């Protein structure tokens, strides 16, 4: 189980010189992209909330948060990375370790991943492999171990490939979630993970520690839900801003993130009282669903939607890089160790709308999530976002479309890649979709 295997099973040998050179260029390019994204977000809302400054800063993948984690590590803290939302972060926190999600949102590194896996493989996977190859991701590099959850095919093999570098803890997720044996199996995985984390960190996960961690995540969920609540009415925050807030939770300090989000909500509530909207209240309201969209390069679609002519506003999403991160609290009845562990198991399995699940109803939970969002957030159009190679999301589209057709909400299937080359064509698609939504109102 100990790390550093002698022989690499997947990864090619890359010279130190090449690693350093590529890392320098790609890091510089990425810093430019992040700065540009934020500039555009600022421009989109001239009266952007003060509190967004914090999230702009923390969104810098090579900035303050990386330094903080390095300092914690120097004091002996462990960092546990993960690639899927199923990783039970409360357990990591309860063991005084730092959870960080390490999926790559860099387009450039997906081309490096091509050296290991074919181009048909989902670019999120290829890009994460590429990022590891040149040590681009600070959070990945800082991780002492990685939790690899076997959800889609790409994720299943990603952990195996990354085991050339890192200690990997696999978690086996049952594909049929609504059965007692599935839950029992998954709860065992959770207990096993608890033991693993305790042994690895040398910190015992006590009842009190776990309760504190769960309470912290309750508070975060509450702050998150308050923010989402504010997106139900006339727009007081650009979708991109809210999406950035949600995503930074994946690497930020959980308590501080919660406080900053609460501060943001305070500001936004005042703004709502003043009826000071970020854009006209009749701007078409868009929801995004599909493949996760990792910062920074994957801001392509949200930027197109909100800078399109006619403009759209993103009011909701159903993505594991977005609202799914914090939507569901761990539901504890009694605060016994057993009850807490079972509650964690249930929250990560049952609440998930990941397309890796099926059952006799199919992934009914996802359909319900989408229909509820459409209703409560008054969504006028859905963009179904899929990167090529993301098989499960691509396959579930037909079903989602049928469900949305029934309630007369247009959905547009937007397939793309980890590339900037298709921005022009995507713009035409997005604009035509928004024209269509606008035309439902006038013209």
């Amino acid at each position, binding site marked *: 189980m100990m790390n550093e295997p002698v022989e690499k099973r997947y990864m090619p040998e890359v010279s130190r010189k090449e690693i350093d050179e590529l890392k320098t260029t790609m890091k510089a390019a990425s810093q430019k992209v992040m700065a540009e994204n934020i500039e555009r977000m600022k421009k989109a809302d001239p009266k952007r909330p003060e509190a967004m400054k914090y999230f702009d800063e923390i969104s810098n993948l090579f900035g303050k948060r990386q330094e903080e984690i390095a300092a914690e590590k120097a004091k002996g803290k462990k960092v546990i990375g993960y690639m899927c939302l199923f990783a039970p972060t409360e357990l990591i926190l309860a063991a005084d370790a730092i959870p960080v999600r390490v999926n790559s949102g860099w387009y450039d590194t997906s081309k490096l991943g091509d050296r290991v896996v074919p181009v048909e493989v989902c670019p999120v996977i290829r890009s994460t492999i590429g990022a590891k190859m040149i040590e681009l991701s600070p959070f990945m590099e800082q991780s002492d171990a990685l939790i690899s959850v076997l959800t889609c095919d790409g994720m299943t093999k990603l952990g195996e490939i990354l085991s050339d570098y890192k200690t990997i803890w696999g978690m086996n997720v049952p594909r049929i979630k609504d059965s007692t044996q599935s839950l029992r199996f998954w709860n065992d995985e959770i207990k096993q993970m608890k033991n693993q984390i305790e042994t690895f960190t040398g910190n015992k996960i006590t009842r009190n520690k776990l309760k504190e961690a769960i309470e912290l995540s309750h508070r975060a969920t509450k702050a998150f839900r308050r923010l989402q609540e504010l997106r139900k009415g006339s727009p007081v925050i650009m979708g991109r801003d809210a999406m950035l807030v949600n995503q930074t939770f994946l690497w930020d300090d959980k308590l501080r993130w919660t406080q900053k989000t609460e501060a943001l909500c305070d500001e936004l509530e005042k703004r709502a009282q003043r009826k000071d909207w970020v854009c006209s209240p009749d701007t078409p309201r868009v929801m995004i669903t599909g493949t996760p969209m990792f910062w920074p390069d994957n801001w392509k679609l949200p930027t197109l939607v909100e800078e399109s*002519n006619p403009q759209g506003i993103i009011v909701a999403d159903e993505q594991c890089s977005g609202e799914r991160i914090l939507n569901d609290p761990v539901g504890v009845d009694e605060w016994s160790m057993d009850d807490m562990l079972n509650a964690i198991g249930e929250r990560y399995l049952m609440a998930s709308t990941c397309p890796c699940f099926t059952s006799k109803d199919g992934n009914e939970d996802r359909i319900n999530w989408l229909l509820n969002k459409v209703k409560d957030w008054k969504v006028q159009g859905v963009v179904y976002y899929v990167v090529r190679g993301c098989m499960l999301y691509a396959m579930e589209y037909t079903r989602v479309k049928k469900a949305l057709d029934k309630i007369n909400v*247009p959905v547009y299937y937007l397939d793309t890649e980890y590339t900037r080359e*298709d921005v022009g*064509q995507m713009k035409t*698609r997005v604009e*035509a*979709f928004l*024209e*269509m939504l606008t035309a439902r109102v006038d*013209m």
Partner: protein
Amino acid sequence: MTEAGTVKGQEFWRWQEYHRIMPKKWTNKDLITAGVDVGSVGSKAAIMVNGEAYSWGITRTGSNSPESATKALSYALEGTGLKASDIKYIVGTGYGRVNVPMANKAITEIACHAKGANYIWGPTVRTVLDVGGQDIKAIRIDETGRVTSFLMNDKCAAGTGRGMEVFADLLQIPIEDIGGISLKVEKEPEPVSCTCVAFAKTEAMGLLRKGWTKEKVLAAYTRAMAVRMANLINRVGLEKELVVTGGQSKNIGIVSRIEVILGVKCLPMPNWRDEGSLDPMVAGALGAALFAKALYEKAQKA
């Protein structure tokens, strides 16, 4: 129209640039609007008088979109007596829509082709296939020409006008004869397996070496393109009446094969060569000019 392969150094891919003025008059009281559709291959500009097609010009898009837009609009104005300043409102559309310098507003070619198809063929049109130079769009519309859903092919020129140009050059057949020639086969051959423009060339060369006639090669390639387009139409959901717009609407080889594959007849194509007849290649520009009229009137009311 020239005979295939008769002129040395002939550019077989080059299609006819032309302009047309419809037999009607305008006065200073009329509302003049224009649509400029800068596509990846062709630039089209249409002038409307009170929402009726009056004149248009079709030119090849150069490397510079604003220049192409200007050129197309001047071409549409040629011989009409109208000046650019007579135009009250201009809508830009097409791939280069944001680079139409004189446009008051940009609208996507998807909305414009929908509107234009409704104008050309009337309110019974429900499905529009727009085959442009670099992409294919299948568009569902309502009786007013409003888009209800659409699909677009990915970033690849397969089965598009640009792909046909490559073939015209390869087989040395003038582009405008390609459709007809592709139909001169006794039995329809299997479609080529790969429609990729880059690879299709290699595959076609292989077939020619194997002794296939030009007609047969063209039939196999055109068939493959038509299959791709029919798939797109099926995915968006075919509802009658069906029409084809864009440059490839003039390719009888494509249109007739789509009809066979889908088992429906398209609404009759106006014969664009006749004076006084509309041209589905300018559907986007016509739609844009109609939007221009609506937007101008809306602005006047406000």
